[in-house]
């Protein structure tokens, strides 16, 4: 009997039973501990440290504000050209949360996260052993930053680890080489992972899915730590945030995942709710919630254990985090905290406060976190006024001292672009490659017992019979099978690798590449995701930067739009924005569709080749699919792997011995010659190979000997092979199924014009899909280039004397007229 992969029957009798949906009250400002209670829990010195940390955060941001608005700070003149999204007034939220977090807990922030990352760093420094801190500082950047601190910021008055932290952040904000990310991230992206601060994000809500991915990694590795997404209230309007809340509370963790993974990932959503999303007021204007915590009631029956917390009181925030952290470690995530607070500073320093009244700002100043907390400490006799003033003064001196050194361009320079003009490009790819273990592990069955693997072993490796006839995909290894072979090889041997996407488990992926994998790979490493393309990509990023590897599927490449920011701004950029501190070993599979029309049949390779930071491959044969997939899964750079749905059933006809049974790799950046010829070079991208090959057969009848090159890899692209070929043939036609306008084929054509101009007998031409929608199945052949279309162009543009009177649809198109019409 067919094995049932899971057992959550949906019973209509239960579904249609009369009932009421229940929700419970969520606490709002229910914190009740007295200062004596807190004193007993934390001790006097710790409570004083909270105040000092708030002072540091405040003064640090006062300094930035002063530079932005006056060009100087305490007699230090400096023009700071970058952004300063300050959170003056929100210090209790940042410091209170950090105070309660452990050094190993990870926080991910927003574009307004200076305070959060400084506070978390200070908290880690307070809690880590001196030896540990010393080794962290020594290991980081070859010890350069700590040497700088010991040389230039050596006043014994100040703790060197704090100076290390603050100079790393400030140098990053000021875009200097000693910054934590060599100045490649800047103000909105600063982070330092050894202290538990992870990428802050300039895209509102952008951290949410990344943090969930990190929580998934912590969960699957049984780490006793939590992950925190510090988000603004404005991000409750962002799709990714909702996707991420759902992703972190999917029913399958508890219902389907085996022990010890049958718990929810330790994920905390901290909304630093200052009531304004830049100038739009979330409360009452742009959002529907009355209290931000209400949104948790829409996520799961536990209502995300949500609470609304007073973010002007650091101890109220710390109290909540301590309680919630315990729940999270026990597997009861995700949790939502609505931390209400207020920023007096503008959204940015150009903010004129047009959207709020001066009275409102004045009212909130009575709730100033530092003022309130100081009074409380004095009242409780924990600190006296004199000590308080000394503390404040010392912090001001610390920040002034720090700033005086970091602004100095001689002492603290930026990376030398004059000397090395392409240095930023060097951060784009790390080109690191892992080797895979030969030993299998973490499997439900031995490989030999798996039906999927047994059925592949029965098939012919080559796609033609001994008599030369083409074998069906039931008898020979197809492109789909060869992908499966490479992927199952890695999944079986690399425990850090997880695979997910919509219907990836039981269905085996929409096009069956993973069919049968659920027999062998445990569900916690191969699972169905919700229809949340943004979260699929975003969580993979968090999983990967935490030390894991992920292969994710987007079903149709048309759905790239649903994950636009996550692919364009996150996946493609974090390696370079972190100056190589982060690696993103992720393979994003996206299929190029067929038959379904405009929203399902687009070749969007060119959208992605336009974005720097992604390796992009598009194999057209089973041999290449397996070899390129192996290379992609070994790469530590993010790779987008395009697959054509029209090619899944293709058998191998080019490599004589067929698709090797054994594991092998096809390197990135190497094209392959499918046919040698002397009269014209036809470069094909992906599935167009087959149309071009058919055309080349017909061209022989007209004494035109075409050389066919299959690109295989788009980024990087093998210019060497192409230029060598064009040097011999003098003619180039590029065939791609991407729409012609803005296509990557145009970039290649331009480069060939530039680099092989003297060898060209005619201008390079490209043929792509026309600049309109992909029609449905019956009209599809009028859209993507067919062999007739290739023939038309070859005759028309390169061999007009041989032009023949028949062929495809494009024959008489006036391409210039179409272009003028925007088509």
């Amino acid at each position, binding site marked *: 009997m067919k094995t049932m992969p899971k057992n959550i029957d949906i019973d209509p009798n239960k579904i249609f039973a009369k009932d009421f949906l229940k929700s419970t009250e969520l606490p709002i400002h229910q914190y009740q501990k007295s200062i004596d209670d807190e004193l007993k829990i934390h001790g006097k010195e710790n409570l004083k440290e909270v105040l000092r940390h708030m002072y540091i955060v405040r003064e640090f941001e006062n300094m930035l504000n002063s530079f932005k608005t006056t060009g100087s700070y305490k007699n230090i003149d400096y023009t700071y050209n970058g952004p300063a999204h300050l959170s003056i007034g929100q210090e209790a939220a940042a410091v209170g949360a950090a105070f309660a977090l452990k050094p190993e807990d990870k926080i991910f922030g927003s574009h307004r996260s200076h305070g959060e990352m400084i506070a978390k760093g200070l908290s880690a420094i307070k809690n880590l052993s001196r030896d540990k801190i010393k080794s962290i500082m020594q290991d980081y950047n070859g010890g350069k930053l700590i040497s700088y601190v010991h040389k230039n910021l050596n006043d014994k008055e100040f703790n060197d680890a704090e100076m290390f932290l603050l100079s790393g952040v400030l140098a990053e904000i000021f875009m200097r080489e000693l910054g934590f990310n060599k100045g490649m991230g800047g103000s909105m992206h600063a982070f330092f992972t050894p202290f538990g601060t992870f990428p802050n994000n300039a895209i509102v809500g952008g951290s949410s899915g990344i943090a969930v991915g990190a929580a998934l990694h912590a969960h699957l590795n049984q780490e006793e730590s939590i992950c925190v997404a510090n988000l603004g209230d404005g991000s409750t309007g962002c799709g990714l945030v909702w996707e991420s809340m759902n992703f972190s509370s999917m029913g399958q963790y508890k219902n389907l995942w085996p022990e010890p993974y049958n718990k929810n990932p330790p994920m905390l959503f901290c909304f630093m709710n200052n009531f304004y999303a830049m100038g739009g007021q979330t409360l009452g204007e742009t959002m529907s919630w009355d209290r931000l915590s209400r949104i948790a009631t829409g996520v799961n029956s536990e209502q995300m254990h949500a609470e609304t917390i007073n973010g002007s009181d650091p101890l109220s925030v710390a109290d909540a985090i301590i309680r919630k952290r315990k729940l999270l470690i026990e597997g009861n995530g995700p949790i939502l905290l609505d931390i209400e607070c207020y920023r007096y500073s503008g959204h940015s320093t150009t903010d004129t406060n047009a959207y709020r009244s001066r009275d409102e700002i004045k009212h909130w100043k009575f709730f100033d976190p530092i003022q309130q907390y100081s009074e409380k400490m004095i009242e409780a006799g924990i600190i006296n006024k004199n000590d308080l003033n000394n503390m404040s003064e010392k912090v001001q001196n610390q920040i002034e001292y720090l700033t005086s050194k970091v602004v100095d361009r001689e002492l603290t320079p930026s990376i030398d672009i004059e000397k090395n003009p392409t240095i930023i490009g060097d951060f784009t790819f790390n080109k690191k490659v892992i080797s895979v273990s030969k030993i299998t592990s973490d499997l439900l069955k031995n490989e030999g017992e798996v039906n999927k693997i047994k059925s592949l072993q029965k098939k012919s490796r080559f796609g033609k019979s001994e008599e030369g006839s083409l074998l*069906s995909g*039931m*008898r020979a290894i197809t492109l*789909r099978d060869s992908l499966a072979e490479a992927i199952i090889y890695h999944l079986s041997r690399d425990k850090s690798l997880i695979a997910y996407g919509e219907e990836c488990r039981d269905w085996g992926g929409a*096009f*069956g590449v993973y069919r049968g994998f659920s027999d062998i790979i445990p569900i916690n490493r191969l699972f169905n995701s919700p229809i949340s393309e943004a979260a699929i990509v975003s969580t993979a990023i968090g999983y990967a930067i935490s030390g894991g590897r992920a292969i994710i599927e987007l079903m149709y490449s048309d759905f790239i739009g649903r994950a636009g920011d996550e692919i364009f701004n996150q996946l493609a950029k974090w390696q370079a924005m972190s100056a190589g501190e982060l690696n993103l070993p992720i393979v994003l599979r996206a299929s190029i569709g067929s038959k379904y029309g405009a929203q399902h049949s687009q070749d969007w390779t060119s959208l992605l080749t336009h974005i720097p930071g992604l390796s992009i491959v598009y194999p057209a044969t089973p041999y290449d699919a397996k070899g390129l997939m192996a290379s992609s899964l070994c790469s530590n750079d993010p790779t987008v792997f395009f697959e054509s749905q029209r090619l899944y*059933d293709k058998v191998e006809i080019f490599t004589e011995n067929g698709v090797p049974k054994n594991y092998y790799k096809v390197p990135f950046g190497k094209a392959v010659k499918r046919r040698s010829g002397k009269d014209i070079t036809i470069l094909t991208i992906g599935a167009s190979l087959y149309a071009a090959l058919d055309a080349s057969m017909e061209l022989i009848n007209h004494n035109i000997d075409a050389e066919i090159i299959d690109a295989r890899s788009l980024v990087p692209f093998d210019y060497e092979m192409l230029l060598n070929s064009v040097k011999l043939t003098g003619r180039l036609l590029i065939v791609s199924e991407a729409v012609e306008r803005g296509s990557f084929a145009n970039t290649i054509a331009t480069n060939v014009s530039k680099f092989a101009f003297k060898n060209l007998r005619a201008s390079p031409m490209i043929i792509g899909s026309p600049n309109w929608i992909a029609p449905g199945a019956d009209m599809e052949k009028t859209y993507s280039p067919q062999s007739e279309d290739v023939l038309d162009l070859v005759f028309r543009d390169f061999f007009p004397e041989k032009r023949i009177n028949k062929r495809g649809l494009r024959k008489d198109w006036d391409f210039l007229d179409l272009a003028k019409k925007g088509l």
Partner: protein
Amino acid sequence: MTDIIIPNLGNEISEAEITEWLVETGDDVEQGDVVLLISTTKTSLEIEAPTSGKISQINSNEGDLVQVGEVVCTIE
């Protein structure tokens, strides 16, 4: 007498593999019972009995490749 044939599953599919027989010769089946499982390059499929009756003949074994349109089983 009713034949169970391998259905047409689209232009590109010409063959299917018999994954599993859920009946044996002589079994009684109701209309709609799943009789066999097949798989193609694209998908796995359950084939149901088109009518009630007794399985009188099974023409192929598990693991066999069969053509679209081929009679794999007969119900009387």
